[in-house]
């Protein structure tokens, strides 16, 4: 039915309107089999709307969309039977235990009782929840609920897994555990589509990503690509006492390729951060603190949109 070359998702000119509001304004995307693909952007960029259209739970307004080679408008149920969805907010069944959540969800896909019973055991293990199998889900921690939701999305052995902000609201330890699980899935050949407004998450997980802003795609490529194309090798961050920053801007601007003025700090883009820091000091500028780091996707986003990701 599908060949290796056929993209799992292909959108062209895809749009989504809610009344007068244009959430997605004509995007072109291709996701290939086996890759981890990211939608990076701030809240309201159109990431979730796009995800819902791909998940066949939201009809598109315009443009063309093919998921697993099929049209969601025509073959919604057939497509949904082969994808897994991890929504932004956990919607586990609070009237059921962890194990029952997996078993009953499998039954929604028409899987046999025997199959979902053994599948649930396997997935509880994968989600490291075997010792909580017969507990109610409400008292579970945020990280556990998230892992259970991911386990649930795998009950039908999907070809394609959609994760909408999988680690938002989790503590660092829970995020790392979750990333590990997602990385294992990727290794086992599952195609992942992830939305996130965390650049570190995108850098960790995604082979390729698009940066979305205001319903449009601002840039596309691998994280390294995007950084090389849209930012410098290093960034020098300077912090000042409140009120001191504005006077410094004209002094440091000639020293760097580009300067971004954030409310709490200045970002100086350059190939040589330490060199520029020396030059800053040589001109008598005394920041409260300074930091030289490598460019990240956050810088790419800032360059492309003039805003930080977590506005």
């Amino acid at each position: 039915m599908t060949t290796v070359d056929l993209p799992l998702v292909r959108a062209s000119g895809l749009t989504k309107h809610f009344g007068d509001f244009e959430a997605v304004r004509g995007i072109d995307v291709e996701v290939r089999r086996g890759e981890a693909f990211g939608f990076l952007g701030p809240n309201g960029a159109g990431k979730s709307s796009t995800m819902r259209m791909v998940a066949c739970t939201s009809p598109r307004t315009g443009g063309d969309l093919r998921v697993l080679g099929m049209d969601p408008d025509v073959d919604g149920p057939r497509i949904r039977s082969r994808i897994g969805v991890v929504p932004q907010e956990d919607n586990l069944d609070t009237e059921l235990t962890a194990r029952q959540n997996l078993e009953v969800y499998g039954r929604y896909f028409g899987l046999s009782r025997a199959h979902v019973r053994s599948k649930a055991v396997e997935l509880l293990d994968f989600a490291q929840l075997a010792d909580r199998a017969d507990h109610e889900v409400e008292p579970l921690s945020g990280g556990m609920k998230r892992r259970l939701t991911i386990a649930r999305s795998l009950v039908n052995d999907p070809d394609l897994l959609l994760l909408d902000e999988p680690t938002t609201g989790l503590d660092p330890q829970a995020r790392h555990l979750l990333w590990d699980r997602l990385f294992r899935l990727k290794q086992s050949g599952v195609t992942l589509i992830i939305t996130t407004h965390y650049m570190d998450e995108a850098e960790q997980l995604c082979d390729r990503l698009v940066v979305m802003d205001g319903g449009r795609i601002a840039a596309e490529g691998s994280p390294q690509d995007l950084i090389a194309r849209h930012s410098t090798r290093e960034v020098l961050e300077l912090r000042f006492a409140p009120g001191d920053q504005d006077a410094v801007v004209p002094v440091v601007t000639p020293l760097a390729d580009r300067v971004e003025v954030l409310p709490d700090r200045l970002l100086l883009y350059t190939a040589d951060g330490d060199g520029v820091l020396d030059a800053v000091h040589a001109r008598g500028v005394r920041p409260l603190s300074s930091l030289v780091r490598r460019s990240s996707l956050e810088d790419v986003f800032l360059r492309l949109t003039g805003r930080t990701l977590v506005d």
Partner: protein
Amino acid sequence: MTHTRERAVSRRGSGLVLRIVPPGLYSGRGGVIVERALVVNRRAWLAIVSGFFEPVLFLLSLGVGFGQLVSEVAGPGGQPLSYATFVAPALLAASAMNGAVYDATFNIFFKFKYARLYDAMLATPMGPLDIAIGEISWALLRGGLYSAAFLLVMLGMGLILSPWALLALPAALLVAFAFAAVGMAATTFMRSWQDFDLVQLAVLPMFLFSTTFFPLSVYPAGVRVVVQVTPLYQAVELLRGLTTGHVTWAALGNVAYFAVMAATGVVVAGRRLAGLLLK
């Protein structure tokens, strides 16, 4: 018996439904929702059983207790009936209505608005109509158990006068189906818990005035018409006719009334759910 009946009803319903709505909204898997309800309620049998007592308590209080004060009431064909015999089938109808409305409004509103249960279901091959049919089937299955138990109580108390009463169970199920379908459709229009007062506003007067406790003849002619168009009056007529053995062609009219009500409810509920959930 209840099970085959229920399957027959939903199969016929789905044939009709498939012609009216796009195939993406329905995948013929509503039964899994009943399965889920069974898993959820496996540990809550006491709560389930308690639903049986309400009509029985009414029957003991009004039918037997209050009935001591009322010598006889004119039955459907004008024949004199004991008050308990008169009121029991009406209580059966009212309990079919109450149970179905409760299940289809409060329970469904909670799952829809707060538990986001249906969002999760719609990410699977299931469609909104599977949800509508599945939830209604569960309400029906539960209502059917209560009705069967209540009919046995009636039989034990000597309140069943005719073998036609065998049809009272499927009739009560049809009544419950219709009320559940319309209740679910109404739920899709509700925005907050305050709106549920409107449900009470519709259900309580019907319970009190739809010839549940006294015959239609007490009303002046103009008011009679108003009472006669209410669904609970139709249900009471149908069931009272069957348990007292006064069955006329009018019973088919009652059945048609509920068939139309049920079909309209399912289609409206399915479409509204699709509109609300598949934005």
